[in-house]
């Protein structure tokens, strides 16, 4: 979700022309089935978020020295995968790796005729691609737990697995088509010296006059919409009665995905107020502005929140993370295979699924998490190294006095495995700092809600609302500006007229 918005218009236009002209000439360098096995090369075209996979080249001092052994990224994950695949399956695979900036960019790239085999969009884009029947379902072999190379199905967190299995689109669960990669929630990074934890724990902080021009908000319509719905429904969502509802999770999701006319109107009003109170709508500058102290609080994705707090810590400037009481948006980025890339090529599909599995192997998960900063959906299954890594990152030193127990059972605990405990003894401040953002507490997770993929009509209404918020309305132009413009215009016309008259004479 490290979205640097790339809205370069010339780029889009050039891309349009380029794609139209060249899409036909792109040669698909697929495996030739008739050639001898040893010489086969499968080309796998992968498209992922920018800076979302380990590229290797770590310094010696970056080594993650777990008790179970050192982990270090010497070469890029891609190279390691190519080698691993050849060793295990005897087939050469060549990964063509490219990146995208936003889900919308990726979708536009696909529409323009770019072909990829494996991409990693967020959950709502996966849902959109599913409804448009663009995806290849994962094979049965992928879910075979007896294959030790199937690191994904043997290692994915039970909590994440249940979400992927229980959420359906057109009657098909996500898990048929998508394998998770990273996940997180949304929240507020704040400077505890200026903002109280209580204030940061509500979406209402975004237009709180007490923090006038001191808070940044995400510059994209979905994140802004979610926060605004949380703020305008705050009373309902935080009421005991709503919380005690036996169907709470379901009701919460319905409320947070409300796109009724009245709600959209209220959201628009709210966001206009936010625009008048916020420091800025930001795509990427929020992190730096938080670290340099330009703002007091910052609407952030949990992975970027970890990064922000890490950066600030280097300057001895402690920041904290809060998850709003109303609800938090839980999001996933996941791997999906595209029909027009795979083209029913078995070898290609196998390589794509192996790529997912290789990136789900505990040591690789740790490398990716260390490099990217986000949280993997993999808990490791029998492999304890991922929990060990969490403890290595956030566990307290032995001489630390002020410590708290932090239970991550909801994420790591497998069914029928109740004997194990997944509790990190962490310095107390970590309970509302990096550890909290990296692995949110079960309590915060209980308030999480997915944000579904809106249909075209809803999207249109919401995008119009967004334009209404962000644009300058012509009716808001003050009279004096019209008058001044009129005067300037008049002077120009008079001058031109005089000149014309003179030249005729």
């Amino acid at each position, binding site marked *: 979700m490290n979205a640097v918005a790339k809205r370069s218009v010339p780029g889009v236009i050039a891309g349009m022309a380029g794609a139209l002209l060249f899409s036909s000439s792109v040669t698909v360098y697929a495996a030739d089935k008739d050639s001898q096995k040893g010489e086969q090369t499968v080309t796998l075209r992968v498209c992922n978020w920018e800076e979302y996979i380990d590229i290797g080249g770590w310094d010696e001092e970056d080594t993650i020295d777990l008790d179970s052994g050192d982990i270090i990224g010497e070469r890029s994950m891609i190279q390691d995968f190519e080698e691993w695949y050849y060793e295990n399956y005897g087939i050469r695979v060549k990964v063509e790796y490219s990146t995208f900036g936003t889900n919308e960019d990726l979708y536009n790239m696909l529409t323009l005729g770019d072909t990829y085999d494996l991409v990693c969009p967020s959950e709502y884009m996966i849902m959109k691609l599913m409804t448009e029947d663009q995806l290849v379902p994962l094979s049965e072999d992928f879910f075979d737990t007896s294959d030790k190379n199937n690191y994904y199905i043997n290692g994915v967190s039970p909590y994440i697995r249940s979400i992927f299995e229980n959420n359906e689109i057109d009657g098909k669960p996500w898990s048929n088509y998508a394998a998770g990669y990273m996940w997180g929630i949304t929240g507020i990074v704040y400077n505890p010296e200026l903002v109280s934890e209580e204030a940061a724990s509500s979406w209402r902080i975004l237009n709180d006059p007490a923090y006038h021009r001191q808070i940044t908000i995400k510059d994209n319509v979905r994140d802004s919409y979610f926060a605004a719905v949380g703020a305008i429904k705050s009373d309902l969502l935080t009421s005991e009665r709503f919380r005690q509802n036996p169907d709470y999770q379901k009701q919460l999701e319905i409320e947070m995905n409300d796109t009724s006319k009245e709600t959209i109107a209220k959201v628009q009003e709210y966001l206009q107020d936010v625009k008048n109170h916020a420091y800025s709508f930001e795509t990427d500058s929020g992190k730096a502005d938080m670290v340099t102290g330009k703002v007091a609080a910052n609407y952030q994705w949990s992975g970027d929140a970890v990064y922000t707090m890490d950066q600030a810590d280097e300057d001895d400037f402690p920041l904290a993370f809060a998850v709003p009481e109303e609800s938090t948006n839980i999001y996933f980025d996941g791997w999906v295979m595209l029909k027009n890339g795979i083209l029913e090529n078995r070898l290609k599909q196998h390589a794509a699924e192996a790529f997912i599995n290789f990136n789900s192997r505990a040591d690789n998960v740790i490398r990716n998490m260390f490099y990217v900063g986000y949280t993997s959906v993999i808990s490791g299954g029998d492999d304890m190294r991922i929990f060990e890594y969490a403890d290595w990152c956030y566990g307290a030193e032995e001489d630390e006095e002020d410590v708290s127990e932090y239970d991550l059972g909801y994420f790591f605990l497998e069914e029928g495995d109740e004997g194990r405990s997944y509790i990190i003894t962490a310095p107390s401040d970590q309970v509302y700092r990096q550890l909290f953002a990296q692995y949110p507490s079960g309590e915060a997770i209980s308030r999480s809600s997915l944000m579904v993929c809106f249909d075209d009509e809803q999207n*249109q209404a919401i995008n119009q609302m967004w334009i209404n918020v962000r644009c*300058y309305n012509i009716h808001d132009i003050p009279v004096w500006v019209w008058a001044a413009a009129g005067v300037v215009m008049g002077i120009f016309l008079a001058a031109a007229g005089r000149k014309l008259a003179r030249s005729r004479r």
Partner: protein
Amino acid sequence: MHKYLFSRKNLGIPYALFLVLFVMAPLLVLFYYAFTNGQGEFTLLNLTGFFSDPNTLGTLCYSFGIAAVTTAVCLLLAYPVAYILATSRFRTKSVILMLFVMPMWINFSLRITALKEILTWFEGNLAYHPFLNTVLGMTYDFLPFMILPIYNTIAKLDGALLEAARDLGAGGIQAFLKVTLPLSMPGILSGVSMVFLPAMTNYVVLDMLYNSTYIMGSLIGSYFAAYNWHGGSMIALILLGIVCLFTLLTRGIEEENTRGGALL
């Protein structure tokens, strides 16, 4: 054979190819999307939609306002600088001119980031003055484009004309108004068009200086992010139309001026 290969006509082929690929083709695509709807049918709704929505019109006005103020500030700053540099006998003239142009050698986003820090130093919280900051940022960015053409026209000005004006009894100010200013008009016009048009669409400066109100560039981007290529293309096309109109207008004035200049 050799003659055939290197004939003048054939040397033009790469350029023609370039024009077709990177100018004509994108334009055609732009036209196609601007006048069709999601189903690929011809429609004028994108066009009428733009001119009936108070938000898009407001954005046009806002962009226009930013561009106009930026251009005016650039002109007011650049003219005296260019005039002094062109007419003085400083031996350090070229050095001073270079100092103004030098920022252009530094990456643009780096410069704006630096400006952001400097402005924060002065203003404290940048979010209080979005319009002012935008104009400052754009002025900083575009000033050299205004100075250079004006400097060039004034530097090439025939000194004899000024002497003649003085001989015929014009005062310093009168000579400037009647001779220097009209004759430097071509420089001013090319400066204005080099500043005004980019200022209408350069949303990166806005984004980086925390102006949360859309201008034309960001509006087009938001349409594309919402998969509405048709609306986005139409706005791009309308902008293109405005650019054409503007260019024709300045050229008209320029021609008028050269005729006026010949009369002198």
